[in-house]
């Protein structure tokens, strides 16, 4: 069974880009366009990995991750930050329990390599 990856990203373009890359490698992709939707899908689907945008409308990706980490059902799912935010937020992201901090400009090759480490 292929690994299941949840992409929480409000921007359609980046959902499309991530889905293209991840499908190509053979992962199953579930999409969510907001933090709450993401948390709900994480609880119901229990994916193997979550790729989380930080600048989400309403609740941001860091807060969403912190909540996921507090929920025993989702606490062990690795969450990777995927963002245009500067490295200045890396500390906070890691504090919230994120496993990696990737800029959205990360080349597909590098992205898949890093994701591969967690699966």
């Amino acid at each position, binding site marked *: 069974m292929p690994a299941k990856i949840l992409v929480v990203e409000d*921007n359609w*373009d*980046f959902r*499309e*880009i991530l889905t*293209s*890359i991840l499908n*190509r490698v053979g992962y199953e992709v579930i999409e969510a366009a907001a933090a709450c939707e993401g948390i709900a899908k994480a609880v119901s689907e229990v994916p193997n990995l979550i790729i989380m945008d930080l600048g989400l409308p309403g609740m941001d990706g860091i807060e969403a991750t912190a909540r996921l980490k507090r929920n025993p059902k989702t606490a062990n799912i690795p969450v990777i930050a995927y963002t*245009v935010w*500067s*490295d*200045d937020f*890396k*500390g906070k992201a890691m504090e919230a329990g994120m496993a990696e901090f990737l800029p*959205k*400009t990360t*080349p*597909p*090759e590098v992205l898949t390599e890093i994701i591969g480490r967690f699966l």
Partner: protein
Amino acid sequence: MVPSNPSAAQEMMKLAVKRPLRVLIVDRSAEDAKRLVRLLREGGYDPAFERVDTADSMATALEQSWELVIANSGIPNFGRLDALALLKEKGLDLPFLIVADIDNEEAIVTALKAGAHDYITKGNLERIALSVERELRAAQTRRERQVGAEHLQRHRDLQTALIDASLAITSTLDLKTVLNFLLEKVDIVLPNSATTVRLYNRETGALEPITCRNIDENEWRAANRSSNRNSRRKVNRPALHNGFPIRLDKAYSDLGSVDIFRKYGFVSYLEVPLLAKDEMLGVLGFYAHKGHQFSQEEVEFLSMLATQAAIAIQKSQLYEQTRKQKAELERANKVKTEFLSLMSHELRTPLTAIIGYTGVVRDGIFGQLSVEQEEALSRVLSRSNNLLEMIESILQATIFETEEVKVQIATFSLSNFLSELRLLYRVPMDKDITLIWDYPSQLPTIRADRIKLTHILRNLISNAIKFTDQGDIKVSVRHSPETKKVTFKVTDTGIGIPSKALPSIFEMFHQVERPETRPYGGMGIGLYIVEKFTEILGGTVEVKSKPGKGSTFTVAIPDGI
């Protein structure tokens, strides 16, 4: 006898025409008084006299004006000394002659000491006219001297006022404060006058009320408003034309706002222009009560005061102008910063999406690509990343302008840090450049702001790559345990920087102007960020460069701040 000089001629006139003389005689005997009067008449005077022999009658008599007092002796209870004292009490400085007995020398000396001016002995009364003449002349001199002293004192007061005024204008920039202080000084010369300051508004051509003294300001302003409304031509005032003061003794018809001044009883008007460097700033108006005519001295003082006022006004106007311009500049700068920040944010998202899609296509996720297609897309990626870097630089620079940049110090391995940095330059460059990393295999952990250090080095390395067409770019790193400093050196074999351009390369938006036709991209923000971050980290940045040979940038930052 032919008079040889004017004063001799006057003497002769006196002889010919009897000189009127108002004389007060203190004497018990009417007969003695008459004798004195007769002797005076014989001496060339035409005396009008009154005889008094008590303190009361003398006090009453002194309500009229006298030129001379002659006091005889022998009045019980009202002696010569009493008469002298009474005169002093009334504040009168009249020539005081005593008629005395020749053998009573002691009485004479006492009287002279008490303030009598001269004495005549009873046996020598014929000489009284001469004595009177001398004393009248002496009194005249005394009066003149007194006037001179008063004049001098007044002159000193005016000088002091002008010095105070010039001190006042150098110590404050608030226009009304200075002007009100200057107007106070007007009281020295014109205690009961009203003063007004009106300034010429170049846009509307009207004289606008600024401040006034000794009249109700609201009333005056209201009067000015209505007069300005009624007649714009009122601006064509003489003082505005030729720059000289004008004096009007009956000012009714010429004043724009007469009613208010008439109400206060002001009739005479003096208008002095406020001139600073030949520029007409406005007018100072002085209003005096009926009967006052402005003297030359007053006009001069007020003109000098006007000069001081003009300087104060001009200074204050310049200050106000500078203050406004500063506020405008600050606002414009804020708008610029906000605009840049917003633009950068808005540009970043679509550009990142472009990079994302291009990466997906280039990596063959949507199907196999030809070598040429892959190369072309690699260039698209490379250029897009350059563009994104520029946008991020702008964002970074606007952050410097708007908020305080926080330093986040952490302990990290310098070796790890450099390995991660190297990863960014793994992608092959489309130039014939070799990137050489030169650092010892054993490097310690350091305490510094890792992110800012990354920014510094990335900017230096991208600059080196940008300005080098072929050759080597060497990144050297050394840690000195003695000085607790880490030194980063980025050396290129690029086009170099002309020495005269070196001092300004760290300025924002600065790029060295080059005669070559080939443009180098970028906006001149990279080095600005390098310098700012280095400064924030408490380090130093140095540059050495030879045009045509290459440049070396050296950044040294403390290990642990």
